């Protein structure tokens, strides 16, 4: 068993142990220290848990299949005319899949060639004797190359990775993924995947900075001040999931972010307030609730008036 499999095996044991109602404080402490032992551990656990939950979602369909197995290859017949047309150029069969995703089969016989444009704009050129299937869903673009040769020209879509399965390998068409934030003169770039180079528009102004996954650079536009740090990129990307996560960031940054989310202007009472350091997680539901939570998480008061909401620092002395 290689190390990767060993991590998976441990992760699977944890998932099964923790889903049980008997899991308690001792399990938590042991689990927490296991997670911290290796960066591979959280990743392996997340894979195992995701699969576990995926099985739950598939349970009704799986149940039917396990109880009464169907023939392995069953596709609804295309209409006579379209089938004849398809046969002339190679076969294209369409089948509805679960969750609205469709599976298309592309097949060429020896000496035949075909090109196909997928619904996402990607192009595939099939060589002769090629058999592949394509499943486009809202979250993924999956191709299985059963046999043959094909050239892929993949349309850029960061939300839907393009994955080609061929035998026991998969080919993942990756881009880089990074977050750029510009609020007023504050600019920051955070990289989650791949490598990004940040350089001044005017080359005379400085050297390019290369950012790897987990790197963040904070820059004040119009100055030469840049500050590099290592962050949890997931925190920075959390806004996509309706959350803002801060670790020791100035309140001015939090306020700028919230103003990008809600129409009613939020402002700080004074410089001292704007400079307060803030750590916390804010769920973006409605503005009043968010501001209320903000005043619970940090020593702040808030008041709202016609022109918006103002937050201010409470006196340092206890009230």
């Amino acid at each position, binding site marked *: 068993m290689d190390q990767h*499999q060993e991590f*998976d095996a441990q992760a*699977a*044991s*944890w*998932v*099964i142990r*923790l*889903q*049980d109602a008997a*899991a*308690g*404080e001792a399990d*938590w*402490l042991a*689990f*927490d220290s296991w*997670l*911290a032992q290796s960066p591979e551990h959280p990743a392996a*656990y*997340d894979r*195992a*848990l995701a*699969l576990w*939950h*995926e099985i*739950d*979602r*598939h*349970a009704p*369909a*799986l*149940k039917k*299949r*396990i109880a009464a*197995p169907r023939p392995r290859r069953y596709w609804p017949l295309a209409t006579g005319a379209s089938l004849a047309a398809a046969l002339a150029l190679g076969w294209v069969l369409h089948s509805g*899949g*679960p*969750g609205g*995703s469709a*599976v298309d089969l592309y097949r060429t016989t020896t000496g035949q060639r075909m090109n196909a444009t997928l619904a996402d704009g990607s192009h595939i050129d099939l060589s002769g004797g090629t058999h592949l*299937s394509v*499943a486009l*869903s*809202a*979250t*993924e673009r*999956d191709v*299985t190359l059963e046999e043959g040769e094909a050239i892929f020209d993949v349309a850029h879509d960061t939300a839907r990775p393009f994955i080609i399965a061929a035998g026991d390998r*998969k080919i993942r068409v990756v881009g880089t993924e990074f977050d750029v934030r510009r609020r007023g003169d504050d600019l920051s770039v955070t990289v989650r995947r791949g490598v990004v180079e940040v350089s001044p528009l005017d080359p005379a102004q400085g050297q390019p900075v290369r950012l790897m996954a987990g790197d963040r650079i904070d820059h004040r536009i119009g100055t030469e001040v840049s500050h590099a740090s290592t962050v949890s990129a997931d925190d920075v990307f959390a806004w996509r*999931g*309706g*959350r803002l996560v801060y*670790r020791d960031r100035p309140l001015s940054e939090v306020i700028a972010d919230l103003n990008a989310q809600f129409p009613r202007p939020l402002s700080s009472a004074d410089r001292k307030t704007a400079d307060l350091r803030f*750590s*916390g997680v804010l*769920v*973006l539901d409605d503005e009043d609730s968010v501001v209320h939570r903000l005043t*619970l*998480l940090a020593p702040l008061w808030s008041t709202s008036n016609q022109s918006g909401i103002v937050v201010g620092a409470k006196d340092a002395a206890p009230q």
Partner: protein
Amino acid sequence: MVAANTDILQLYLEKRPSLVRFFAARLGSSEAAEDLVQELYLKLSSTELPAVLDNPSAFLYRTAHNLMLDRLRQERRSLQRDNAWHETRALHAGEPAVDDALASRRRLLRLAALVEEMPAKMREAFRLQKLEGLTQAETAKAMNISVSAVEKHISAALKLLLRKID
């Protein structure tokens, strides 16, 4: 400043990912766990905490665990409330509905094929617990084996699926 709470809030930020992972297994979804752990934050920051905690990490766990039990109790009291909670959460989190996350038909076929290939007892334990929704104890009774044997089968089934699914 709220001096007593500062340390525990700092620790919370450190432990937050672990807590979400821990409770996601029990609650059946990462979203529900995120929600619980967020509620924990609100609880910690709005409650007077003891000045000295001998094991802050265990304290975090116990507070979260109690919140979870409160929740499960409330849910049992009213299914309607449960649904409302889920709907609100989906709305707030802005995450894709479960349907959108459904993998392709191919993925389902692959899963089904892998389950079919499992050794008979492993498949039966997996089927009863995971597909028919029996508890571990009920599965053990139905198969006339021990609870720990069921756990071993289920754990082996997940390992097998993890190893072969890609």
